[in-house]
């Protein structure tokens, strides 16, 4: 038996500098290019490295959202993954809660075809930025989860030893498989897509899961309204700053300390 690895990817705007559309209260994305969420590149790269480490391993990129979510899946294939699937549930990608329900169902479909060992995620997304979907998918599947992983150490088909970056140091965790692993930037340095990969991405026949395939039609309304984005607003302007001038660095340092003391931040 060979390793079967799924990487969940999301198609997101390639810039975070977006304006708010006052009529919808959502971000204006007309004319904005979408691509694979930058954090997902680390998860994709890790899957490709695992394939190099364990020849014969199979890697599948999975995205959820409108049909155009296939863009992120094809980018993952261009970066070296083998196959792709899209859970076509438009609107669900806006809510981490709903997205996790849909992704978990799609992973179960893939798992039924060929048992999955690892599901990899990026740290977060550059749009809704919850950093929750991996942990939620694990909870929905009732699989173990380790997030903030910077190294996948020993690995066999039953168990993985991983190092995770904590707020105060590094934990080593041993998890039974199948498991969900959330990655951080330190795990690797993603390679760029290769020409061969790009060709494969273009041609790849992706698996398409519809709501009827996933059996989620009945849950749809509740899943999407459990937490919904009501409105977006720009950041309030910061109060105008002061400039510290002085004849010498010593002079400036002294003035700065006086201001900090006045503001009671030191």
């Amino acid at each position: 038996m060979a390793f079967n690895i799924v990487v969940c990817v999301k198609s997101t705007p390639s810039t975070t500098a977006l304006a708010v559309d006052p009529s919808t209260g959502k971000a204006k994305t007309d004319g904005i290019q979408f691509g694979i969420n930058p954090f997902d590149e680390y998860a994709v790269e890790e899957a490709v490295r695992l394939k190099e480490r364990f020849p014969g391993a199979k890697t599948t990129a999975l995205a959820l959202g409108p049909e155009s979510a296939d863009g992120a899946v094809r980018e993952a294939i261009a970066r070296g993954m083998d196959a792709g699937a899209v859970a076509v549930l438009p609107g669900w990608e806006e809510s981490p809660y709903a997205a996790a329900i849909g992704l978990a169902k799609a992973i179960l479909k893939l798992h039924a075809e060929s048992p999955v060992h690892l599901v990899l995620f990026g740290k977060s997304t550059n749009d809704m930025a919850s950093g929750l979907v991996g942990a939620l998918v694990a909870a929905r599947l009732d699989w173990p989860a380790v997030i903030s992983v910077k190294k996948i150490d020993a690995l066999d088909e039953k168990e993985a030893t991983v190092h995770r970056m904590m707020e105060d140091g590094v934990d080593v965790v041993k998890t039974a498989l199948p498991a969900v692993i959330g990655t951080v930037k330190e795990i690797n340095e993603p390679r760029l897509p290769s020409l061969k990969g790009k060709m494969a991405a273009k041609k790849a026949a992706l698996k398409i899961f519809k709501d009827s395939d996933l059996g989620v039609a009945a849950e749809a309304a509740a899943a999407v309204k459990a937490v919904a984005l009501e409105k977006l607003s720009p950041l309030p302007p910061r109060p105008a700053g002061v400039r510290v001038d002085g004849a010498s660095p010593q002079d400036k340092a002294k003035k700065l300390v006086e201001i900090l003391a006045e503001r009671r931040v030191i």
Partner: protein
Amino acid sequence: MAKGTLAVLFPSRGILQPSAYEALAAGKTLAGPLGEPLDAAIIAGSKGAEFAKDVAARGPGRVHLIENPAFENFSDEAYAAPLKRLIEKEGYARVVVVSTINGRLLAARLSAALNAGIAADVWGLAAEGGRVTAKRSVYGGNLIGEFAFGSERQVMLIQPLSFERAQPQGSPGQVVTADSAPGAVRARFVSFEPQPAGEIDLGSAERVVSGGRGLGSADGFKMIRELAQVLGAAVGASRAVVDSGWIPYRHQVGLTGRTVRPKLYVACGISGQIQHLAGMSSAANIVAINTDPDCPMMKMASIAVPGDVNEIIPPLIAELKKRKGA
């Protein structure tokens, strides 16, 4: 109908972090306007009575103590099972957890187990007419998203340093012992290697001193560390210097690094790429020291100091030491 708010607290490496008290204050911002009780649950492997007494003094009506040696090292799988039973038995509608790495895992398990809507890194909460909304930063911190909950139960992960730390007050809440049978654990803690001694965690730091390209070389971080030490601050860095290997990734502030929300952020030689600003723009006071007076960081700063960091920081350290000594 589910009712009431439960703040979930647990020690980390045997210590109840001060940021845990922020879950109580956040819970109160909901319980107050909704006219509902605020209770707390504390999960610990040992010293449970001590933690429960501490938490009970800070405002909750009741504190459910869930203690079992199996809880000594954090496990979302072990912790979630007794919490789910408690929440269902007592009928709590809202659960508040601090947004740490472990908090995220635990909150996700509770959300799925209770079919409760969930929002992470929440820094603003409001309850009006029984309806709860949460504010959090989206699109790299460039926009503020307001999210409304539509599920009967809700789980909120609150961003550290966004709510006050509940202080001891009035008469203490009642401590009650809760069922503490752990859930089955498949992801097991093996070992822990702490950060170098004396390093303050960025995520819950009230003061942060960060260095960037303007330092000139990796050596500049000696000065940054000294300034941080004098200020009692955590050390941060821009992506550029982390990528150059001047300082480890754990210090990176910004979109691909950590998000900080300190009272004071000192940006030393950091021009302010949008990705960096995403991680620190909600700091209450931003000091920028930079040779380029027109860079984004200097424009955003509450206090802009034009000049070379290598010339300004040494006298700044001396001034701060003088004041400390005085």
